[in-house]
Every structure is written in C-alpha cells, then in structure tokens.
C-alpha cells in the first residue's frame, strides 16, 4: 500500500502544481517539491527491508481480461531507480525554480515534470509488463510535453515530435513484444514470467520477442541507430535535460533490459545484438560529442555514449558486467545531471550555450566552474571519482567476455578508444568553457548563479566524490540488491574499491586519460576532418522524411480516391459482380423444382415493350425529356406486369408513384440542363456496357433460379390469419397495416423525413429562371391555359372521392392509405400545375409539415393504443357492429393506422412538389415575340 502512495505522490504534485498557479514562484516550487519529498519519506522505512533482500509487492486486479493488473513491486533494482527519480527530481524542482524565467509558465512546467515523474516511477515499480508499458508510454507523452515546453521555437516543436515519434515507435514494438511474451507465457506478471526463461527462449517466437523488446529499449535509450532524437531533444529547458535526458527517461530502456535480463539474456542472439548495439552507440556518441559546439549537444552525445556503455555491459556474457552496468547507471545519473545543471547555469548567466563564444568563465563563476570540473572529471573517469570506479569495472568486464568469439579482443580495444574520446570531450568541456581566453560577444556579463540554484549541483558533485571515495559505504548494499534483482540470483563476488592493483583495466584507464588529453590538444586536424562532412541536423532530415511521407501518402490517396463517383460505383458494382456471381458459377443447374408457367403472346408483347422502352431510355438518355417519356413507358409496363401476375395493389401503387416521380423529374429537368453533351469515350462505354451486361446476367439468372426454386414460406400463415386475425381479406394490405405494420410505420417515416430533408435542401436555394428551353425557344406566355384550369378544378372533387374509395376498400380489396394519399396528392398537384403556387397556397389552411407530423403521430398513437390493453405495440383490433338502418360495419384500428399513412403521404408529396415549384422567380423577363 505504501508503494501505491509513493506512486501517487507525483500525481498529487502534478495537480497541486496546477492548483497553486496563483502563488509566488518559491511557494509553487516548495509545494510541488513537497510531494516527491513525501514519497521519499514514505520510501525510507522500506529501504532496510529491500536491502535485506525482501521484495515488497502491492497490487490489485485492474483489467484482468487484458492481463493488466495494477501491480507494484519494490526490489533492489526498482529501489535504486526510485531513489534516483525522486532524489534527482527534487533537485531539479529546486533548480528549475531559478532557471525558469518569469515569462515561462511555472505551473505548466511543474505539472509536466511531475507527470513525468509519475510515469517514470510507474515504470520502475511495475510488477506487470503491460502496466510497465502503460507508464512507458506516459513517459513518452510527458517528455513530449516537456521538450515542446517552449513551443514558440520551431526546434522545440520539431525536436519534441521527433522524440515522440521515435520513442512511440519503439513503444509500439515493445507492446508487440510484451503481448507476445504474454501469449507465450500466459501472464504479464513479472513474478510469473521471469521464472519461465527456458520456456520463452525455446519458443520459436523468441527471436521476435527479443527484437521487439530491444527495439523498445534501444529507441528509448537512444541507442545507435536510434540515437538521433536525443541531441535534438536538447531544445527542452535544461532542467528537463538534466532530469530526463541524463538521469531518468533515457535510462528507462536500460531499466527494461535490466528488468527482463533474467528472461531474455543468455542467448547468443542477446549477446550479439545488445553488445554490438551498445558498442556502436558507445563509439558514435563519444566521437560526435567531441565536435559539438553546443554545451548541451556535447552532453547529449556524451549521454548517448554512456548509455551505449551500459548497454554494452548488459550485453556481455559475464554476470559481473550486469553489476557494472547498474553501478554505471548510478554514477552517470549523478555526474551527468550535475553537468546539465552547469550547462543550464551557463546558459542562464551568459545567454548562450555556444562553446565558441563562451570562454574563460573561471574568472566569472569560480565555484560553479570548480563543481563542473569535478563532475566532468568523473565523466572522463578520473580516479577518486565515481565515474572512474564503474569505468574500471567496465574495462575489466570487456576483458573477461567472449561474446564475439575470436574477435572478442576488439571490444576492450574499442572501449579504450571510446574512453579516449570521452576524456577528450570532457577536457574540451572544461577547457573551452572555463578557460581558453575571454568570452566573445555575450549579451550579458556572467556571474555566479543565485545561491540556491547551485545547491542541487553541489549535492550531486558531493555525491560524485563520496561515491568515488567510499563506494562500498555509499551504495554497496543497494548495488548488491539491484544486482540480485537483475541476475535473479546473488551476483558473484566483486569488490568496490578504489584500488585493485596494477592491472590491465588500470592500464586502459591510463591510456584513455593520456590519449584523451593528447587527442584534445591535437584536436584541430580532427575538427577539420569532421568539418569535411556536410551533415544536416537530424530534425531537418526528420522533417524532410515526414514531408516526404506526407507527400507520398497524399499522392496515393489522391490516386485512389480521385473524387470520381464513377470509379466508386464501378468498384461497388465489381464487388457485387464478384460476390453475387461467384456462387452462380458453382451452381450446377439454374433451374429449380417449381413447375413453370406457360407464356402467351400478350406477355411477349409486354416484354418487348418493356425491353425496348428500357433500352431506348438508355439510348436517348442525353435527350432528357425524351428519356423521361421513355422511362414512363417502362413504368407503365411494370404496372401492367403487376396486374398480369396478380398484384393489383402493386399496380396501383406503382402507377401513382410513377406519375409523382415523373412530375418530380420534370421539375428537376427545369433546373438541370435539358440536354447533355456527349463526353464518354468509346472505351468507357464498352467497359460500362460489359459490366452492366454482366450484372444484368447475374441478376437475371438469380431471378430465374429464384422463381423456379420451390421452398416453403411463412406466407400461408398470413393467408390463414388475415381475416380471422387481421380483419381484412386483402392479405397484402393486412400484412402492410397489421402483420408488418411496423415496416409501414418506418416507411411513412422515411417519406416524411425525405420531405423534410427536401424542404431543407430547398431553403435558401438561389432562385432560378430559365428564359428558354433546350432548343432556345422562348416560353409560351400562357401561364395557365384556360381549359386546363377549368377542368382541373372539376377533377379535384372527383379525385378526392376516388381516394376516399380507394382508402376504405384497401383493407379488403386492393387499395389503402398510401395509394389514396397519392391520388389526393396528384389531384392537388394538378391544381398547382393548372393554377400555380400563388393561387393554391393561400387556399390551403394547413402546413404540409404539420400534416406529416399528424400522419406519423396518428399511426404511432394507434400502435400505442394497444398498450392500454397490455398488448405489444401495434397489436390490431377490429370488430363488426350492427348499426340500425345501415347494417353491419367493420371498425378496425388498421383504419386509423392507414389514415396516418394517408396524411403522411399527402403531406410529404405536396411538401416536396409545392416547395420545388416555389423556387422559380415569379416574373419572367419580358421577351419580344419574333415577328
């Protein structure tokens, strides 16, 4: 439970930082620092137990279905990291109080910083791999926020994005690796998977697991060739660099390697990959560090190099190498953090980080200079400082390994070469900054920083010395327990002493020191050599890469999605052809069991009419009015087909819909060009024709197979129950208003919505008036031909009585609310055609949209009425009544429902057509009659 609270402290701190935004800067820092301090205080009582070899655990199930438990564990390794994170974190908080200027938002900075601290603590305290990944990604995010803190600087933005991209890519690989481990070993709990080394390493997927995990670790720890993001992350405020890029985040990758050391190491693949990566990183980092003019750049490359060193150690095949690695983690964190702080102070005091400008600071800030010199000496591996000790162990292990077989001797040699460069860049840092003449062109006169800004440095440098002199006392047991955790066994004996006698490692150290100083003295030639390479900054290359990526993506998207509907529909049709046609090819015989009907001459005539009219429609499609007339023939013939094959209801509906559609299309035609130019190439036509024919064949064949197929259907139920259960003899109508009344409710809703949508489309449409038809003829001046006007008026009551008739007979004979509604609508349209909107509109007392609403409500409420009788929605009711003088009449809920249908249909049809008619301007241009 304590562990839980320790983890939570930074989160509270983060929230506190945001809450305390009104306070003075010092109070802000203080209140923020309080939480890591509390965490440390909570941690201290646990230390003795951990140092005694105990592993403290805490956890509960979180998302057990994922295998993601909230699981914390504190062992030697996590203790070491926790101490680093909290300790250095506290120092950085204090340091940042002075570093940040008044223009910078302090709450934001501290919030991000503590968020990062939380994430980092989460990684090191995790007892569950997925949970570790959770915090791992959080570090990427929070570091992105911290690097981009000065978002007005392009370099900061780009650097942050690059860091995030690289580490997140690694994070994704790591996730895959972790998931694979989980799938192979059946758990993500460290306590359960770490003992299963053999099972994992014998699994076929082990190399994949290893590579994925290593990708995660290497990207995070800036290993070659993924190292490039780190120098560009230096755009972050220096406290961030001191914290993230020296002590903590970059160590997360190393931590991961150490954490999974028992599970993954021990194979040749591990040795080779990790060693070679570490070695190359060590060399690359050390080499490039020397040529940096930016102090932080030098430190960044140096960090890369040291991270390579630690990785190399973890890759070596001796157990003590792992101990050395842990030891160097501590040492590097201490001296590198203090060096970054130095860089920050120099930046703060001089306004520059360019070593070509900054010279002779010894004269301005001797105390800082002294501290920095001690720290860089540690970095160079000078005896009596902590850096020396771990470097000695490192040299020792390079000699005792056999990773590269007969070429293993290369490792100590290259290690020495790297050490020479390390000494050289350390020397450069000291000489070039603190000596080497006078500053050049600085904007302000440097002096010692504020008192408390230096305190963190002082503490760290003191630690360098103390560890360097009294290693066993300072960190002996901690190192021991950390090693136990990494090796999953007590490490072999080793001694933490300053003096191990005259041996090869000492010789290597001496060579490095002397060689490094010589190299620095003769640096001119090397600088000239390096200047010959025209390198571009990684962020520019990264930016260019991203630009290229974006361009390439854009090109491919534009090629695929070219905005052409014809392509889209073509693909859809091809898919249809494939999906519906393929099973047909397998079909042995299209014809089914059902007996066929004989055909007669009349049907052939009908088919000819239909086919010819359809084909003609296609052929004259560019003469639009003609095409419209042709398609009316098709519609008429389809209606007649419905009559012929005993579907009178369908015929009625098709006929009435047909006329409304024609009127609608004609209205459309007025607003669209009356003719269209021929544009298709014959190639396209052939393609389209082939596709259309193929689909026609497929659909026709399916229709044939379907018609001749003999299957039992649920229809007999409807025939049996229409009269007794639905109260009507027209089964089709009973299905519509009763058995499947819910469909009908949906259907009229569709119609109503369509009308609303159309009204919406028509509002605000530019008013339109074409002065002549497609042939350029002026329009006739007779707006409302007399005969039409008179006869239309006479037809209205006739049509209404017909629609009443059709409505009422629907339940028992063909007809119903829908057809009745359309007849009413058509009769009204005729009034519009004959007399115009201006005449009709004032005579109508009801809004069409209200009519739609009433219709839908009527149908719905009819359905709801059945609730009163505790029946489901739309349960129908009907009964027969004897009325004196009149006789028996039937009353049915279906009539009310159908009335709803009627109103909706009338409202919707008229809403559509009348409003479409309104969009023309009332007055047409006066034209001269051609004489």
């Amino acid at each position: 439970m304590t562990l839980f609270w320790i983890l939570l402290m930074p989160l509270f701190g983060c929230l506190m930082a945001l809450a305390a935004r009104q306070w003075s800067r010092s109070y802000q820092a203080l209140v923020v620092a309080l939480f890591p301090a509390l965490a440390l205080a909570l941690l201290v009582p646990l230390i003795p137990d951990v140092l005694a070899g105990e592993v403290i655990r805490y956890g509960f199930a979180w998302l057990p279905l994922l295998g993601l438990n909230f699981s914390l564990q504190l062992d030697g390794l996590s203790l070491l990291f926790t101490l680093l994170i909290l300790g250095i974190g506290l120092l950085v908080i204090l340091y940042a109080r002075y570093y940040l200027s008044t223009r910078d938002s302090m709450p934001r900075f501290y919030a991000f910083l503590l968020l990062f601290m939380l994430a980092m603590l989460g990684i090191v305290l995790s007892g569950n791999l997925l949970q570790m990944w959770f915090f791992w990604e959080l570090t990427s995010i929070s570091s992105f926020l911290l690097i981009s803190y000065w978002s007005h600087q392009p370099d900061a933005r780009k650097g942050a994005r690059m860091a995030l991209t690289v580490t997140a890519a690694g994070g994704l690989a790591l996730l895959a690796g972790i998931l694979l481990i989980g799938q192979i070993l059946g758990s993500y709990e460290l306590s359960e998977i770490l003992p299963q080394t053999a099972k994992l390493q014998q699994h076929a997927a082990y190399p994949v697991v290893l590579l994925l995990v290593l990708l995660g670790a290497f990207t995070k720890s800036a290993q070659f060739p993924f190292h490039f993001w780190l120098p560009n992350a230096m755009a972050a405020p220096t406290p961030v660099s001191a914290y993230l890029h020296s002590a903590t985040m970059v160590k997360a990758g190393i931590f991961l390697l150490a954490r999974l050391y028992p599970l993954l190491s021990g194979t040749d693949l591990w040795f080779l990959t990790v060693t070679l990566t570490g070695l190359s990183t060590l060399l690359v980092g050390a080499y490039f560090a020397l040529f940096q003019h930016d102090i932080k750049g030098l430190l960044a490359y140096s960090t890369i190099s040291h991270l390579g060193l630690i990785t190399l150690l973890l890759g070596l095949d001796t157990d003590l190498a792992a101990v050395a690695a842990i030891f160097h983690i501590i040492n590097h964190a201490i001296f590198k953090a203090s060096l970054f702080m130095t860089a920050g102070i120099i930046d703060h005091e001089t306004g520059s980080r360019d070593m070509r400008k900054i010279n002779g600071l010894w004269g301005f800030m001797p105390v800082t200079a002294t501290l920095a010199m001690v720290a860089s000496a540690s970095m160079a591996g000078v005896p009596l400082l902590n850096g020396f000790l771990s470097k000695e162990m490192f040299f020792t292990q390079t000699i005792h390994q056999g990773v590269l077989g007969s070429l293993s001797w290369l490792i100590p040699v290259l290690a020495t070469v790297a050490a020479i460069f390390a000494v050289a860049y350390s020397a450069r840092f000291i000489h070039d900054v603190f000596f080497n003449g006078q500053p050049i062109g600085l904007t302000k006169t440097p002096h010692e920083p504020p008192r408390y800004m230096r305190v963190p440095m002082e503490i760290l440098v003191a630690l360098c010395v103390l560890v360097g002199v009294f290693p066993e006392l300072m960190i002996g047991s901690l190192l021991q327990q950390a090693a136990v955790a990494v090796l999953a066994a007590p490490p072999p004996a080793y001694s933490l002493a300053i003096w191990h006698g005259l041996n090869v490692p000492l010789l290597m150290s001496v060579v490095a020191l002397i060689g490094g100083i010589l190299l620095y003295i003769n640096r001119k030639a090397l600088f000239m050599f390096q200047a010959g390479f025209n390198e571009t900054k990684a962020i520019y290359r990264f930016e260019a890469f991203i630009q290229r990526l974006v361009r390439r993506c854009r090109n491919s998207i534009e090629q695929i999605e070219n905005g052409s509907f014809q392509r889209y529909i073509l693909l859809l049709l091809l898919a249809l052809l494939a999906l519906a046609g393929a099973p047909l090819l397998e079909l042995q015989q299209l014809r089914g069991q059902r007996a066929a009907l004989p055909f007669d001459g009349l049907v052939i005539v009908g088919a000819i009419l239909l086919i010819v009219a359809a084909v003609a429609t296609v052929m004259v499609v560019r003469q639009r009015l003609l095409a419209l007339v042709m398609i009316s023939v098709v519609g008429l013939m389809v209606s007649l087909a419905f009559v012929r094959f005993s579907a009178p209801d369908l015929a009625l509906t098709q006929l009435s819909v047909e006329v409304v559609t024609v009127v609608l299309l004609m209205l459309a035609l007025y607003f669209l060009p009356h003719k269209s130019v021929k544009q298709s190439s014959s190639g396209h036509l052939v393609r389209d024709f082939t596709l259309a024919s193929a689909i026609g064949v497929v659909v026709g064949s399916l229709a044939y197979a379907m018609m001749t197929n003999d299957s039992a259907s649920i229809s007999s139920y409807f025939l049996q129950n229409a009269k007794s259960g639905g109260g009507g003899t027209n089964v089709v109508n009973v299905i519509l208003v009763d058995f499947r009344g819910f469909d009908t409710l949906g259907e009229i809703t569709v119609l109503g919505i369509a009308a609303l949508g159309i009204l919406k489309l028509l509002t605000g449409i530019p008013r339109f008036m074409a002065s002549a038809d497609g042939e350029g003829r002026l329009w006739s001046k007779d707006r409302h031909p007399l005969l039409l006007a008179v006869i239309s008026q006479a037809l209205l009551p006739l049509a209404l009585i017909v629609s009443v008739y059709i409505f009422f007979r629907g339940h028992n004979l063909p007809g119903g609310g829908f057809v009745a509604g359309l007849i009413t609508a058509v009769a009204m349209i005729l009034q519009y055609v004959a007399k115009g909107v201006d005449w009709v509109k004032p005579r109508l007392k009801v809004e069409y949209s209200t009519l739609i609403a009433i219709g839908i409500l009527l149908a719905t409420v009819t359905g709801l009425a059945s609730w009163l009788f505790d029946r489901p929605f739309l349960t129908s009711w009907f009964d027969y009544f004897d009325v004196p003088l009149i006789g028996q009449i039937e009353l049915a809920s279906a009539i009310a429902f159908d009335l709803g249908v009627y109103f909706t249909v009338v409202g919707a049809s008229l809403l559509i057509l009348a409003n479409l008619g309104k969009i023309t301007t009332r007055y047409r241009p006066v034209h001269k009659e051609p004489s």
Partner: protein
Amino acid sequence: MSGIEWLIAALVLIGAVFVLLGSVALVKLPDFYTRLHGPTKATTLGLGSLVLASMVFFNFVQNELSLQQLLIALFLFITAPVTAYMLIKAGMHQKVTAIEVTKNQHLMQASGKKPAP
C-alpha cells in the same frame, strides 16, 4: 355461347378494333396535327364499346352489379379534350410543322395574339 355473350364478344371486338385503328392512325397519318385525331377515336368509340362490354359482362354474365366502368368513360371524356388541347398547344408552341396541304397554317402563329378577323 348465349346471346349476351355474343353481344359482349361483338362489343369487345369492335372496341379492340377501334383501339387498334386509333394506333394505326397514329403511325399512318402524315403530321402531328392529323395524328392527334387518332387517339380521339380510340377514346370515344373503342373504349366506349369496351366499357359497355364490360358492364354487360359483369351485370349479366357474372350477375353482379357493376357500373364502375362508366367512371372510366366519364373520366376519359372529361380529360381527353384537355389532353388534346395541351398537346396541340405544345405542338404549335414548338412549331411542329403541318403538312403542306394544311389550310390556314398562319393561324398556328396566332397563339397569344388577337387574330385579325
């Protein structure tokens, strides 16, 4: 076949023939204005005869009261002149040419103008 049925058969055939003749006229006549007279025949005589046949059939053969068919006739009688009127108006508006022998062709251009007596 009873006498009623013969009557029906005759009416049906007369009706069908007139309907067909109307359509033949449509194909055969030389210009739009003359063709326009064709369907009027089909409407009036052909359909009238068929309506009659149908009524006789249902009332006397099927023995059910059926006068609905009259409505169809009524409807057509009301609408056919309007259709013709609108069609010929459209034809004259589009300046569809009449055959040369047509007398008083200049009157076609009279639409909209007060004609000279």
